[in-house]
């Protein structure tokens, strides 16, 4: 273990003194994510604001004069509807058509059942927003007429007592558990992919690997030291990415504030420990996989290109989580990566068991052990170490 720690500390020192590498691997991902998500959030926010503040072009026919005050001139620009094809008109103008029965007011007065026809383009944001505004106004009008003509008891077919419980923590957990497992795996893989090829295949490419292999250090200690170093750096990089996401989520989701949501209150110490253990186990597996590829490759470039398909497979497996309600059988959590994502999802959705956490950890540690052993075998292979 002492030799592995010596190898690990050398890699960490190299990483620390190479400010460019430190910046691009640890700081840049977080900064980039924060910048990109914030820009996206602001663009989306501006679009939403633009739509909500837009003026609706309203084409009306037979509208009683008494209803005209309902439509705020700041929000509606009223024109006469002249019988054009409604679909073409709403498509072209991004507006809304409102057609009243010719004797709308008289029918209302006589307790009749007049009709109002509303046309808008549901696929167009401006027209759709206009349609919603008109529907709200018509609802208000209906309620006003009912209030004027009927008692409260007459208006009600049945009484309703509505109690809507809204637990912000649960809403937060639901949103987070659906997207965060995918992000965790993507960030860890991207981080490992950005450094493992350099740390392992790069040693071969630069001719420094054989220099180490002539020392008495065992191949197993060497492989373990490398994997540990890559794991530490990958976690640092993934953490940076998380900070970037955490800071940009309020902007991206257009939340007023996240101050009301305290992560520790939601998940508790146990949840946070479970999450940490599963993330660490998952990182070890991902680093192990990329280390095997890097040990096999002749160069950094070859390692990166060989690992790219694995990256895509990992993303697909992680994305399956978006459509999953968790593993039906706890033993399925023993499948490396799949199990990790299911349990991360479970922890974040506050729906996990310690058995599933332990299964994932055991499975990940065994898998990492096998991968480290494979790296060791590769480093013992003269064909792989000295291939040109």
């Amino acid at each position, binding site marked *: 273990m002492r030799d592995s720690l010596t190898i690990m500390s050398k890699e960490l020192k190299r990483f620390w003194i190479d400010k460019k590498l430190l910046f691009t691997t640890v700081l840049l991902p977080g900064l980039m994510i924060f910048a990109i998500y914030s820009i996206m959030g602001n663009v989306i926010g501006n679009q939403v604001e633009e739509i909500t503040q837009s003026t609706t072009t309203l084409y009306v026919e037979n509208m009683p004069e008494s209803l005209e005050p309902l439509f705020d001139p700041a929000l509606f620009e009223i024109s006469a509807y002249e019988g054009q094809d409604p679909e073409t008109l709403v498509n072209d103008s991004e507006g809304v058509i409102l057609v009243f029965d010719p004797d709308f007011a008289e029918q209302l007065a006589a307790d009749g059942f007049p009709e109002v026809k509303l046309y808008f383009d549901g696929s167009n944001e401006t027209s759709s927003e206009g349609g919603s505004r008109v529907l709200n106004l018509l609802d208000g009008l209906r309620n006003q007429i009912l209030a004027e003509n009927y008692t409260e008891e007459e208006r009600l077919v049945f009484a309703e007592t509505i109690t809507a419980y809204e637990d912000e923590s649960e809403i937060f957990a639901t949103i987070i558990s659906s997207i965060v497992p995918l992000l965790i795996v993507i960030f860890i893989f991207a981080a490992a992919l950005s450094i493992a090829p350099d740390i392992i295949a790069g040693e071969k490419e*630069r001719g420094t690997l054989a220099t*180490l292999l002539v*020392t008495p250090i065992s191949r197993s200690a060497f492989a373990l030291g490398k994997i540990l170093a890559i794991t530490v750096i990958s976690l640092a990089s993934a953490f940076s990415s998380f900070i970037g996401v955490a800071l940009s989520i309020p902007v991206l989701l257009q939340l007023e504030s996240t101050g009301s949501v305290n992560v520790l209150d939601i998940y508790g110490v146990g949840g946070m420990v479970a999450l940490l253990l599963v993330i660490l186990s998952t990182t070890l597996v991902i680093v192990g996989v990329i280390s095997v590829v890097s040990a096999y490759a002749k160069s950094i470039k070859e390692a990166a290109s060989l690992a790219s398909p694995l990256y895509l497979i990992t993303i697909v497996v992680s994305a399956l989580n978006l459509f999953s309600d968790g593993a039906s059988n706890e033993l399925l959590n023993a499948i490396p990566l799949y199990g990790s994502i299911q349990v991360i999802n479970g922890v974040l959705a506050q729906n996990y068991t310690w058995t599933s956490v332990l299964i994932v950890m055991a499975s990940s540690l065994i898998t990492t052990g096998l991968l480290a052993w494979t790296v060791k075998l590769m480093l013992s292979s003269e064909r792989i170490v000295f291939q040109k």
Partner: protein
Amino acid sequence: MKLSVKDLKKTFKLSKKQQKINRTDSRVKHALKGISFDAFPGEIFGLLGPNGAGKTTAMRSIATLIKPDSGTITLGDFDALTESKRTRQSIAFLTNELKLEDYFSPNYLFAYFSKLYGVDEATMKKRRDALFTRFGIDRFAEVKVADLSSGMKQKTSIAMSLVHDPDVIIFDEPTNGLDVLTAKTVLDYLGELKEKGKTIIISTHILSVVEKIVDRVGIIIQGEMKILEPMDVIRQSDNYQDLETLFFELVEAEVHDA
């Protein structure tokens, strides 16, 4: 510590690409066809041969970087092939293909390799001071390897290979690419190590170096040890004019036979 190599054989499988490069239909290359030689404490053994003759394969086998198909390698009283960790603890192995990490200084690397060889801190500092002063590295001890001249890099590599004060020293082209002054420093130091009773094996294409410092010489051609003689015998023999003529005659004969 005596190094004894007996009947060492090594065959490599050739990929289709390698078959094309070597212009052969054979799927295998017999890199070593049963070479034997001894190297003794207090002597410098020169391993010569043209490119592809099998010198590097022989040296890599001794350094336990590759496994021979058959044969034995003994270091002192132990089997170097089965006790690979002990072997690596006992030898220094330096070739041009072994590089140092550009990002670190000689000071850091010396401490790093010392740890890997299990050298304690006090001994490490003593050896570092002696080697760095001897090679003039002390003035550049905190400069990154990337910023060192090629001569200083080579001297640093030599110093790193000696962190554990090994009994057997195997250097492949130790003066390759060095200016005459640096080359002299390296050769003089090899002479000092010889005087200290170290077993030294060098491989080089510079025959003048061999004639100057080597005590015994082995010439490998196409995986076979063609000549294994003390330098004095070669110098004094009527059969051999000089080492250079002998070397070229052997190589030309092999090319002719092929």
